[in-house]
């Protein structure tokens, strides 16, 4: 009994130190969510102005642009999956990967060939472990993405969409989908799929009011050239927005998971303490009964002599 008492005490101690770690991670995630939300708020003016400009050009200059043209018979699709770099965030990565599997199944049903792009080490590990081809993967920024990261991804995807202009057979992919986790609130984060390219202008968060009449802009040098510059940036800004949402979601998921882990550790400590107390009590009881038994035996032996 004494041995197991020591064992229980050791377990309580290790659970306590585990609890300290998960508690610290919970607090770190909580403080970072605030920063992530601030970043999302700070990025909003750029996205808003860009959306306004794009809708202004789309309204007044009827220009066709390769990035907005729907291909007639889409055969090839690209998919960008935004996952996290680190685990310990509950079901965060697996639910976004599951959503990407659903999208992949749907695209395959439509007879499209899929090329996969990934951000985050978790998604990369998932795909390489299953020997699935990944065209490109970016890692190392999932909890605080910068605009430059989004730009790099955006430039790659736009290039993949446009194909190689010098090669007539390479028309690039016909559509680009984006799978990321939407940050709805601290408690709810949902995996979400959007089609990034070809662009459907005027949608999403920063839609201008429908009663707002856009001014009659003069475009310099020309509507087409302004659009040429605007649209890739619009794509980058959409990707940046998705990365920011995903990072806030990741942190929220981690905070939730670590809170659950801390609570579980508390429960375990309580349970182990009870068992340890019981074991200690049982040990004492046994010792007493041994002494009493011994005394009785002595008394019996003495009585028998007399």
């Amino acid at each position: 009994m004494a041995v197991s008492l020591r064992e229980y005490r050791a377990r309580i101690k290790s659970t306590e130190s585990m609890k300290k770690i998960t508690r610290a991670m919970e607090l770190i995630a909580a403080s970072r969510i605030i920063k992530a939300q601030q970043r999302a708020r700070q990025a909003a003016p750029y996205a808003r102005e860009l959306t306004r400009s794009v809708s202004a050009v789309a309204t007044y200059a009827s220009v066709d642009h390769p990035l907005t043209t729907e291909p007639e018979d889409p055969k090839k699709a690209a998919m960008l999956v935004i996952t996290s770099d680190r685990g310990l965030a509950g079901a965060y990565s697996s639910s976004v990967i599951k959503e990407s599997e659903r999208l992949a199944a749907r695209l395959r049903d439509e007879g499209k060939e899929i090329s996969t792009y990934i951000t985050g080490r978790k998604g990369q590990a998932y795909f390489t472990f299953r020997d699935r081809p990944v065209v490109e993967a970016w890692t190392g920024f999932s909890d605080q993405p910068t605009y430059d990261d989004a730009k790099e991804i955006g430039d790659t995807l736009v290039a993949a969409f446009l194909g190689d202009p010098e090669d007539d057979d390479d028309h690039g992919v016909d559509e680009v989908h984006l799978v990321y986790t939407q940050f709805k609130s601290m408690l709810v984060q949902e995996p979400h799929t959007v089609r990034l390219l070809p662009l459907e202008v005027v949608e999403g968060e920063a839609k201008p009011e429908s009663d707002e009449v856009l001014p009659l802009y003069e475009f310099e040098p020309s509507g087409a050239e302004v659009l040429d510059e605007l649209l890739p940036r619009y794509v980058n800004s959409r990707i940046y927005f998705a990365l920011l949402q995903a990072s806030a979601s990741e942190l929220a998921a981690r905070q939730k998971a670590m809170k659950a882990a801390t609570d579980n550790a508390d429960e375990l400590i309580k349970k182990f303490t009870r068992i340890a107390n019981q074991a200690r009590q049982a040990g004492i009881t046994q010792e007493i009964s041994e002494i009493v038994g011994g005394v009785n035996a002595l008394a019996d032996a003495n009585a028998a002599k007399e």
Partner: protein
Amino acid sequence: MAELLQVELVAADRLVWSGEATRIIARTSEGDVGILRGHAPLLSVMIEGVVEIDTNDDGSFLAAVDAGFISVANDRVSLLAEHVDLADHIDVDEAREAVRKYSDADPDDTAAQSALRRAEARVRAVERR
């Protein structure tokens, strides 16, 4: 209030400056453009360069910007660029170093060329201060 331009200088990841101004000078792909109150609605492509903003209290400041956009409508001016550095916050030695580093870059390397133009804009912004 209506006598002034409402200006927003926006980088991709933050709002750098917003306030009222009497005059703005920015560099577009067609050349420098000066904006005063009552300018016709304009949407133009901005190239790497220096933006000068004269604020209403007779002060003015400079900022180095990346390629981006300027949109003007109803005395509201938005300057959008992926990166914006206010002249007061630029590390001029670092910018000069970048100019040196990229000055003999391959003219076909568009990334290096735009990095060079960005660094030059930063140096110019500091020198004109």
